[in-house]
């Protein structure tokens, strides 16, 4: 919801809403990786990466068996998903700390 933060007024950042928006998007990546969203409190970034790398596996054998186009596509998907997961994980850590910071 759009809100106005007047000069010198209360801070407008909403940690709860931020966490919600991060987890909504993260849920999609977790689904692709094969991680249950209800495990999000216990899951680590390592677990997400492990599963993503397993699903979007890149190796010389992939290249040799499936050809360059398939390898390139896998590489691209791997980067986009892992990069986004990292970004969201970074944002989530700050949002959780902000929720604590702002009481």
């Amino acid at each position, binding site marked *: 919801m759009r809100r106005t*933060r007047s000069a010198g007024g209360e801070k*407008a950042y909403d940690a709860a809403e931020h966490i919600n928006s991060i987890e909504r998007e993260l849920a999609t990546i977790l689904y692709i990786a094969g991680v249950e969203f209800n495990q999000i409190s216990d899951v680590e970034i390592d677990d997400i990466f492990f599963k993503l790398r397993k699903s979007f596996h890149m190796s010389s054998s992939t290249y040799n068996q499936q050809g360059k186009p398939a390898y390139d596509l896998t590489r691209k998907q791997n980067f986009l998903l892992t990069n986004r997961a990292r970004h969201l994980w970074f944002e989530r850590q*700050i949002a959780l700390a902000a929720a604590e910071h702002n009481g």
Partner: protein
Amino acid sequence: MDNFALRSSMVTQQSSKARLSSRVDFNALMTDTGTRVTNFLTSINLDKRNVAVAGLNSYWGYELIREMEPEWMAIVECEHIAQEQILFTHKPNSVFFMNADMMMIPVYKNRFPDSTVCVMNNASLFLMESIVGEMDHLGYRSEDAYEYDVIDREDLGVEKFDMIVAWSWSIVGSDSMLLDMVSSLNSGGALLIDCSNHNTKLYREDFHIHPYSRMHDLLKEQDGYTYHLANGYGQTVFIKN
């Protein structure tokens, strides 16, 4: 550090007179911001392992600006010069900053006090309001000096703006975010994406499969025109029909 990016940035720095860097001590501002944010990130025990932050511009950018070599400062300053150039080209009635940039928002607000400034509810907003808001390099407490609106992620695509400014790393990997930005532009509106060449990695021979090319391919499919400028760390501008 890419040699071309370095040379072009240093010449840009020497050949430009930008409002931001001509009015503040850019190096001191960057150092102070980087120090405050990295201290905060340390205090919350941010996961800094390679698996969690490798290649993550949103993280290492703060580490970088904390203790910048002059060459790096030129590159960072060049990105802000490019932003200011686009922002000052014409006067939009409303500007949305995807990343709450505590430098460019006051610069823009001072230049066009009647324009509406809006920012996204995300980590950069928290850092701007809570962590770096006490800096005095801008001549005032940034949090007290101006009014701005804030929207949540779900509002993007619904709210309308004449201009949207974003750092590439907050978009890459999220097609829906990019498409919502385009939807949020008024007709004739402009979307400016800074650092859009992935630290010049986009220009390798396999650029067509580079992840940042996905962002450009998607923009080219939208109703408007897309311009990628290869100077420095890259700027991409989309003008909506």
